Structures are given as C-alpha cells and as structure tokens.
C-alpha cells in the first residue's frame, strides 16, 4: 500500500504565533505552544501528531512570515 508521510519544520524564532496555520491545517495537528515562548515572547507553532501529516502545505502557504518548511515522502508500506 502506498503511504504518504509529511512533516513540517517551523522556524520557531521567526514565528509570531498568529495561529493562521492552526486554522488552515485540515488534519488539525498544528497547534501553538502553551507554556514555552520564543525569544520575542510569542508562542510558536508545533506539529503534534506528525504521523497524520500528509504534507499538503496548507500551513506553509498561509504563514505570513514564511516560517514553515514542508517535507513530503511517498513510500510503499512493505518497505517499512
């Protein structure tokens, strides 16, 4: 079976915690940190259940500061 795995890398120091990526994620797996903040004092975006991510790039496209880099890989399940 073909599988797609995605992962996002957030530039946490550039992130301003606007939350637009949280709203844009169709799988609802991006959220803002609750307790930690970056050097500027903003909560930043993190990915919670990365195994659900399919690398659709929605979060990256809506990010006003361009903090999100998205990677996507397709592979066959037998190879795992």
């Amino acid at each position, binding site marked *: 079976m073909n*599988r797609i795995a995605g992962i996002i890398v957030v530039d946490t120091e*550039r992130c301003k915690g606007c939350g*637009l990526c949280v709203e844009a994620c169709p799988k609802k797996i991006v959220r803002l940190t609750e307790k930690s903040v970056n050097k500027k004092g*903003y909560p930043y975006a993190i990915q919670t259940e990365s195994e659900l991510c399919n690398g659709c790039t929605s979060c990256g496209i*809506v990010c*006003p500061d361009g903090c999100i*880099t998205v*990677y*996507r890989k397709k592979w066959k399940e037998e190879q795992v």
Partner: protein
Amino acid sequence: MTKENIINPQNLVYKKPSLMNNTPMHYCPGCSHGMVHKLVAEIIEEMEMTDNTIGICPVGCAVFAYNYLDIDWIEAAHGRAPACATAVKRLWPDHLVFTYQGDGDFACIGTAESIHAMNRGENIAIIFINNAIYGMTGGQMAPTTLMGMKTATCPYGRQADLHGYPLKMTELAANLEGTCYITRQSVHNVAAINRTKKAIRKAFENSLTGKGTSLVEVVSTCNAGWKLTPVQANKWMEENMFPYYPLGDIKDTTKE
C-alpha cells in the same frame, strides 16, 4: 519511516521563497502583507525576473518592503508610487515595474497619481492592499472604511452624512480606458491565496508585454487595527468586507 528520512532536501515540497530574506518582518502577527510579499517573491522567482524587476514602495505599513525582498526597490513619496513607476517604466521599458500600495496611499493621498497613471495606460502593475483602515498610524478611518465600521477617528461608526461613502477604487479604475486587467482578490485561505497568485502573475506579465495598467486589489485584514485575533479578523472580513468588496475579475481586455 523516521523523521530523519523525511526531512531531506529531495522531499522538500514547500519553503519560504529564496528572494525573501531572513530579516524579521515588522508586521503584526497574522498580517496579510506577509502573504502578499511571499506571493510577489514566488512569482518573480518563477518568472526569472530577479535582476529585471523594480518595485516601488509606498508609505504605510509596507514602507519597509525593500528590507524583505531582494529585488531593486524605490521608496516613493506618500501616494506618488504610480508617478514614480511611470518614470521608471518609461526609462526601463524591458523591466518589470510594479507598485505595492495600501489604501491610504493608493486611494487617499495618491488618488490623483493613481487615476492619472491608470488613465494614461502606463505599463505597470499595481498591487493595492485594501484593509479598510490606516494600519500604520494606529487605526484611523480610511476612504475604504465600511459604513458603520468603528475606527479611532470615527468611534461611533462611519456615517454617510459626516464621512461620505467607502471608495471603490477598483470599480473606478475599470472605467478607465488605459487599464487592461482589473481584479479583486483576497488572501484569507489557501484557495484564495492561489487565485491571488495567478492574478498577480497575470498583472506582471501584462506589465512586461505592454498591454496597459493592471490593478490587483487584495482585500486583506488588519487584525491589530480591527482589534481582533488573526483568525477572527479573517471571519470578520468574509462577513463584512466581501459583500461590499466582491471578489473576482472586473475587467480583462487581454482575453481576446
């Protein structure tokens, strides 16, 4: 499949355009300017026009746009970006010349320059960010402020007898002979961002092929000025701005 296997340059599907540098942006969190800056950078990269593009900065929130995109920029006097772009385009006819203006710059102090540049049919592209408020100076009433909308200088809401009506610059521009492509777009979700990207690309191509003035209005949010969170501001824009500023192409003479 481990994380290290996926995070690999060959699996990269989306990253910040390389024309956009790492200078931290001064915009408020969730500001629409960031999205439009990113689109402009992506389009110039895709068109391979990095060395042949001249942008004209406005006065307003986007006044520091030259700090964020690594192309040639000129900072024009308040509202005079279309006049400045006229001179640049006439001197460098093979260059891509665009202005990036807000509603205070394009629709208020620079109305004369905007209308006359479009009426002359200068081969420039104009990106007009309409957020219905003066964002940089602290949320005062703009010509594009909606009826009944509360701002710092109309705390009881905009009233027609006192403040007049919101100015639809884009519809006004569509009546001018010199314009070739007039559209109104938005950047509130992924689909809208993709449509805006197509519109800006078309405007840039019109500038290069010399078909006339192109105007892309981007209805955008000012969550700090509207005193809402970025997500609430997008919802407020969909409910209140879109009925008055409907999205879509208004004029396109390049089709035939």
